Structure formats: structure tokens, C-alpha cells
């Protein structure tokens, strides 16, 4: 891992043990490699390395007697700082109707995440209902209904409907005078470059005026994470990110890329296929995972 590699680099400072530009450069090459292997976007890696370089060549580090550990500390702190502060809490009040949209690329884990959100909200004393707005994928509505049954959370859909706005209107009408206080809208996976489908999301947002939009992203996403996230954010201004499939051994550098390019924080992570596999995001744990 990175700490071991740094120890090797700095051990070569035969007894002198002080940092200089040359061995900082060497250690930064290792950091660059670690971040690229972790799928952090190459441009973000470039900026990050420059930031760390200027911090590391600062006077107090140069005088330090544990140079390897000092550089690792700077890298780690800089990563956590970039990832966002832990106190980003997603909370909803039970005395109003909260509307939540769940969006993202094909296969990222949206439908499963809707069920996880429903379960999470109910644990926090809210009354969820899910709305099946994926009218394209075979058996997508059925999938959400099966999950709803498992959870005993109602699912609103409109049989054979080819119009997402009509489904949403039906859902709003059915929910407005009920005791439900959080609506979770599952949407079809789509490409950020699909103009027609991105417009569908913008129109849905206009109709719902949602309280929160979650962008769902797969933890194994590579360099393209910046393009995808930027486009979704430019068009929808989502509020938070849910990083799924964190139970894999993907390092998850996409989390850093997405935060860097959109400024939006990761609020939750998916850690498996079961409804309970859902946790709050910890920036410090993510930083360690990305560094390897």
C-alpha cells in the first residue's frame, strides 16, 4: 500500500531523514499511480498532486523527522478535505410531503437503492411510498413492486403507461391526502448524452419540484465519472450522490471525481444487494480506500 511504498522511498535517505524536492517528487509519483489505479480522473489527479506538492514543500514538512509519514498525512488530509465533511446529513421532516428523485446511468443500482431508501426512511419514522417511473426496462415496474412487497411499502405505478409525467401526477394525487410523507421516484437508467431522456428528467423535476435528487453511481466507474456526473448535475442540479456496490473491491476513485467536478457530497453508500445493505458515507474511510 501507499504507506509501505513511502517508507521505502524515505528509507533511502541514508540516516539523514529529511525531505527534499527530489524525494517528494518520487513519493508524488507513487501517489499519482495510486490515485489513477483507484480510478480518480486523471485531471483531478494532476491538480491534487500539485496541491500536495506545494503543501509538502512547505517549511515545516521539510524540517520534519518522519518525512514519509508527514507526506502520507498531507495526502490523506487533502483527500478527506476534497471528499467533503462528514456532517452532511440527509434529513426530512415528517410533517410535510417530501419528494425524492433517484437518477443515474443504466444498471447503477437505482431501483434497489429506492427500496433501501424506503427502508432507511421508515427506520427514521417516516412513511415512504415508491413510484415506478421506469417505463422502458422490461419488468422494471415489477422489480420495484417485488421490492415494495418485501418491505411492505406501497408502489404506485400506471399500468402500460408510456408517460412518466402522467405516472407522477397520478402518484402525487394518490399521495397528497394520505399519511405518506416521503415519495421516492424510481426513474429509468439513461445516458447523460441522451437528449430526449435527459429532458424527461428535467420535465419530471419541473413537475415534482423535488426536495432532493439523488444521483446514483456505481463505485467501479472509471474516468468517465466526471463527464457523466457533470452532465447530470448541469441539467438537474442534483443534491447528493449515492455510491453503490461498495461491497466490491473497487477503490471508488469516482467518488472523488464526482465531488470535485460537481461539488455535491456523497450521502450514502450501497454495500450489497439486500435492502439492509445501506450505510452513511464516511469521507475518511473513503480516503483510505482510494489510497489503497
Amino acid at each position, binding site marked *: 500500500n501507499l504507506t509501505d511504498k513511502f517508507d521505502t522511498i524515505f528509507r533511502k535517505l541514508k540516516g539523514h531523514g529529511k525531505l527534499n524536492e527530489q524525494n517528494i517528487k518520487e513519493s508524488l509519483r507513487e501517489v499519482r*499511480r495510486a490515485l*489513477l*489505479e*483507484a*480510478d480518480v480522473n*486523471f485531471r483531478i489527479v494532476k491538480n491534487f498532486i500539485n496541491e500536495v506538492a506545494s503543501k509538502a514543500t512547505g517549511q515545516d514538512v521539510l524540517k520534519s523527522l518522519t518525512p514519509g509519514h508527514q507526506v502520507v498525512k498531507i495526502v490523506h488530509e487533502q483527500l478527506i478535505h476534497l471528499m467533503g465533511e462528514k456532517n452532511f446529513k440527509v434529513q426530512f421532516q415528517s410533517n410535510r410531503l417530501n419528494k425524492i428523485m433517484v437518477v443515474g*446511468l*443504466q*444498471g*447503477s*443500482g437505482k431501483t434497489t437503492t429506492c427500496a433501501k431508501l424506503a427502508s432507511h426512511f421508515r427506520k427514521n419514522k417516516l412513511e415512504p411510498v415508491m413510484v415506478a417511473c421506469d417505463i*422502458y*426496462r*422490461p*419488468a*422494471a415496474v*415489477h*422489480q420495484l*413492486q*417485488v*421490492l415494495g412487497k*418485501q418491505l411492505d411499502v406501497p408502489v404506485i405505478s400506471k399500468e402500460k403507461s408510456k408517460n412518466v409525467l402522467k405516472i407522477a401526477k397520478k402518484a402525487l394525487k394518490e399521495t397528497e391526502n394520505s399519511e405518506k410523507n416521503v415519495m421516492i421516484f424510481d426513474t429509468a437508467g439513461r*445516458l*447523460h*448524452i441522451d437528449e430526449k431522456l435527459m429532458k424527461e428528467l428535467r420535465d419530471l423535476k419541473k413537475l415534482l419540484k423535488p426536495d432532493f435528487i439523488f444521483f446514483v453511481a*456505481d463505485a*467501479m*466507474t*472509471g*474516468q*468517465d*465519472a466526471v*463527464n*457523466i456526473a457533470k452532465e447530470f448535475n448541469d441539467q438537474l442540479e442534483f443534491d447528493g450522490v449515492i455510491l453503490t*456496490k461498495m*461491497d*466490491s*473491491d*473497487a*477503490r471508488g*476513485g*469516482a467518488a472523488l471525481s464526482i465531488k470535485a467536478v460537481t461539488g455535491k457530497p456523497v450521502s450514502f453508500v450501497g454495500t450489497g*444487494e439486500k435492502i439492509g445493505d445501506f450505510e452513511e458515507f464516511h469521507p475518511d474511510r473513503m480516503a483510505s480506500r482510494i489510497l489503497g
Partner: protein
Amino acid sequence: LQLRGKIDDDLMDDLEEALLQADIGIDTSMYVMEKLKNEIRTQKIEDSQKIQFLIEDIIKKMMIDEYSHQADHLKIANKKPFIVLFIGVNGVGKTTTIGKLARRYKDEGKSVMVIAGDTFRAAAIEQLTIWAERSGASISKQQQGSDPSSVIYDGVMSAKNKNIDVVLIDTAGRQHTKVNLMNELSKIVRTIQKIVPDAPHESLLVIDSTTGQNALIQAEIFNKATNISGIILTKLDGTAKGGIVVGIKHQLNIPVKMIGVGEQQEDLRDFDAKEFIEAIFE
């Protein structure tokens, strides 16, 4: 890519960044850049216009070799039933790809059976059933929660008895980090071999083109559970380049056989290395 003037460090940096941006990965990118620099030296190249052809040729030689022309297409020849197993991590496009391939073989006049080997995920069987209906393939399935190996055993037996030409087997998405699920996959392979000893004739790892470096580990681990005969690279209709397959071919010698370019039945193409590589530098 700005290809004019002399070959300098800026051009080399731009080229390396194009590789990294395509998810080719740092090790494979460094390998390609080393080869490029050697070629520039030995061929005494000074015109940067020649560099694009050179780097594309280096990568093309990594992706296809003299044997791969036959190997890089599904070898359906004289196997009946011709059995194809689809594997991969969650959400990459296995079920949809089966729908596309079923359609292709039906259009070629073959009889096709799909087997609903994903007995775990909500509505997985219903999803595959709709794809079977769309393509005209028959489907062998049991209820959700059944043992996948039993379902697959029954399906393959039925295909053999009914003289089916092509069998496409769907499996549940699984993370290679889950030992019990990888063991389940090995068991599925052994089960198929009880009926058809040289099957699966194709074991296709489905990879999402937006995947980063984790794809290499996926390929390594899945390859241990079943000898992967090829990769299907999906979602290339997006902006990701899918460069992870270059490293996978280079390190594991697993070729890409097909690509997915959309969500409809017709959105499946044979892999074209030239087009794939040119897209990296576009």
C-alpha cells in the same frame, strides 16, 4: 489530439492522457508509451502526423493476433446445443445482451432457448421472459429462489432433448469478492459439464464500458471460476471508451468478441478493433 509540428514532451503527455482517459490504466498506458518511444527511435520518426497511426497500430497488435480472427467470433460451428454462459458483476448488461443475441440467432434461422439462471434478483426471471418473447426464443425457468444449478441442469437437458441449436444461460450478477457466489458459478459450470462435457462452448464475461481498473480484477477472478472465452463490452453508446479491455487482453489473453451499443434487440455488434481504437483518440 494536436498532431502537428515536431514530436515533443507535450505530445507524449497528450497521448498518455488520451490513454488514461480511456481507462487503459497506468501500467498498460506506460507499456504502450514505451513501445511508441522505441518505434520513434528505431524508425527515426520526426513527423508527428505518423504518431497517431503508430500508436493505434501498437494497440491493435495487442488486441488482435494472427489467431484471433477465428477466435474473436462466437464459434457456433457443429455444437448442438451450442451453449453460451453469461457471467459478470451486477448491472453490466448480461440479461439484455442475451435478449440481443437470442434475436440474432433467431434471425439466422436457429432454434434458441434461454435459461433463467438468475433465481435471486427481484423480477430477473420476468425480465428475461420478456426478452425471450421479443426474440422468439423459448425459455426454461423455475420459480424465484430455486437453486440456479438445478434450473440450468433442467434447461440444458430439455434443450438437448428438444434438439435446440443455441442455449443462452443467464446468471445472477455477482461480485468476484464473494467466494460463495464464485463457488456457485464453478458449480454451475460443473453442472453443465455433466450433460455436455465440453460446454460451456462460450463463457462470456460481460463488462460495462464505464468500468475502471476493477475490470481487470473481475476478469482475473471470474476466469478462475470458469475459463472465460471472451468479453462482451456493453454501453459503448455512452462516452466511456472501455479501455480496460486492452489490459485484459494484454495480461490475460481474453479477447473482446462483441459490444453492446444500446438497449434494443438490434444493438449488438461484433467487435471491431480498428473502430474501437480510433474512438480512443477521437
